[in-house]
């Protein structure tokens, strides 16, 4: 099968730092794929290579089977939504959106119609004449997206596009982006460090760590069958338990506790409330820490208490240990 976009063994070095250490990925047409990872893991570098803003030291990039590794950015049918939006401050909203069309010498009437269409697509009807500086963060975001899709690219690269927005707006924009991607049928390569966002939006997630993909899979696979301890810990912060030379991931919501449950005697260290969930930190007899989570605020466990802590055998997933 020929993939829409294929990255083959990309290497990139900046000075003495090896930012990418052999990144490979196959993306199907119309797929929403998220590069998930902590800052500095190489995700931005990966999409800059796809956009042509940087060139790889090694490896190739194929679009529709054609090698585009060395093409300049203007020759690739790939557009980017930049992290800081990068809207042109000397142009109004409509001119920003139609920039790529003007470069391609699309006639004015056609351009204007397209701008109108895009403005309504991103719900900014009637804002074409506005100055970029008069827009709010969320509006700038929408303009940046409209501008990037104006010339109908085959692949859209989005570098933490929602990073600067507040939580509520981010949730709204997540849904909107997903809707937009379905409407346009464009392949999306989306960068985020927020695992919740990745799980919400993606067809597949590529978890990136230290210049490599640790695991590529559907949100379900990543969440329930983490391949490595890093993935288990980074996506949904599962407990990583080391027993008898093997390493297991146990999700916090699967940890059971109480005086009557099977398991081992553990001490409650800390109790905290985050994201609608109560999180209780236990210390096992061998010194390892385990977090359990419960919905709601009430729990009998108080710091200093001792009780039984355990999990069902099927909830412990064996993972490769990469020391995290």
């Amino acid at each position: 099968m020929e993939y829409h976009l294929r990255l083959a063994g990309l290497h990139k070095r900046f000075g003495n730092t090896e930012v990418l250490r052999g990144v490979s990925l196959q993306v199907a047409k119309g797929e929403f794929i998220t590069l998930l990872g902590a800052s500095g893991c190489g995700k931005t570098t990966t999409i800059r290579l796809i956009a042509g803003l940087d060139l790889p030291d090694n490896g190739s990039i194929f679009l529709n089977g054609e090698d585009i590794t060395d093409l300049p950015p203007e020759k690739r049918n790939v557009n980017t939504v930049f992290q800081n939006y990068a809207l042109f401050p000397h142009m109004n909203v409509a001119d920003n959106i139609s920039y790529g069309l003007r470069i391609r010498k699309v006639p004015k009437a056609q351009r204007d119609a397209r701008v109108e269409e895009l403005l309504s697509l991103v719900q900014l009807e009637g804002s074409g004449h506005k100055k970029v500086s008069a827009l709010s963060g969320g509006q700038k975001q929408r303009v940046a997206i409209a501008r990037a899709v104006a010339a109908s690219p085959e692949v859209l690269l989005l570098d933490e596009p929602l990073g600067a927005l507040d939580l509520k707006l981010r949730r709204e924009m997540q849904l909107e982006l997903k809707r937009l991607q379905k409407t346009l049928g464009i392949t999306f390569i989306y960068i985020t460090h927020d695992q919740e966002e990745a799980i919400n939006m993606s067809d597949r997630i590529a978890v990136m760590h230290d210049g490599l993909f640790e695991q590529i899979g559907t949100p379900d696979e990543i969440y329930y069958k983490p391949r490595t301890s890093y993935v288990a810990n980074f996506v949904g912060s599962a407990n990583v338990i080391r027993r008898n030379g093997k390493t297991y991931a146990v999700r916090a919501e699967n940890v059971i506790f109480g005086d009557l449950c099977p398991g081992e005697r553990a001490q409650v260290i800390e109790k905290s409330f985050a994201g609608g969930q109560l999180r209780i930190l236990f210390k096992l007899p061998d010194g390892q820490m385990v977090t359990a989570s419960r919905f709601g605020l009430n729990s009998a466990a108080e710091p200093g208490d001792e009780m039984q802590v355990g999990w069902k055998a099927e909830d412990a997933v064996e993972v490769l240990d990469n020391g995290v």
Partner: protein
Amino acid sequence: MASEDRKRAKKETGRKGRRESRIAFLLPIYAFTVVFIFLPLLYMVYLSFMTRAQVWGFVSTPTLDNYRRILEPVYANSFRVSLRLALLTTVINTLIGYPYGYFMAKLSDRGKKVMMFLIMIPFWTSGLVRINGWIIVFRSNGVLDSLLMGLGITNAPLKWLYSYPMVVFGMVYALLPFMILAVYSSVEKMDWTLIEASRDLGAGKWRSFVRVTFPLTVPGLLSGVILTFVPSMGLFFIAELLGGNKIVLVGNVIQQQLTKGRNLPFAAALSVVLMVMTSLLIALYRRIAPTKQLEGLF
């Protein structure tokens, strides 16, 4: 209750105190501006409407003669010559200074520092001395002639000095750093992700420059234009030293009227007209400058 009142009272005196200290800080600045800039200007305007005295100074008889005299061909011509020279100087400065400032801003941090240092060196000596340095180079049988004849390129001294191109050269030489620095500072501030965005959207390097970099650095270019155009109307010593008596600028006329002519009121009137002209230019700049970025400069 009582403590709250006290708190409020304290707050109010605090606020008042702040306002007072602000005035105390600004007062010397206002005083300086009034004493050394505003009053002399006012005096000059006043002077321009007075009658010259027989030997030196003026008598307080109001007249418009000084302004009428400016319309005489000799003097009106000096304005024309000045404007033409200033325009030519500015055009050449732009052609050299824009690319120079642009590429300087794209150097490494180290390179920028070195270039900045080199540009600043000439400012450590007086402009007069530097122009005299050029005279040593360009005069008959001077450094340049000796070099050309020594290399066998020419066999007789060439007449470089006292010509219009020589004055243009001197003006460009004296004012180019201002253009370079003005362009440099605006290119330095450029957000280069905008160029990446432009190329990402399909524009090549050159088109990205024309459509994004250039429009965003026009304010810097315009302030460079002001910084070179305005002074080149008044740099009389360059015209005098490098142009002989052939090129008479407004600055030269003013200087002559002050010294040899001993006509203070007429010199004042010429200065007022020159000042009004340059002020109009700056007003025009403020109108057409596309952004407010550099407005504070003038």
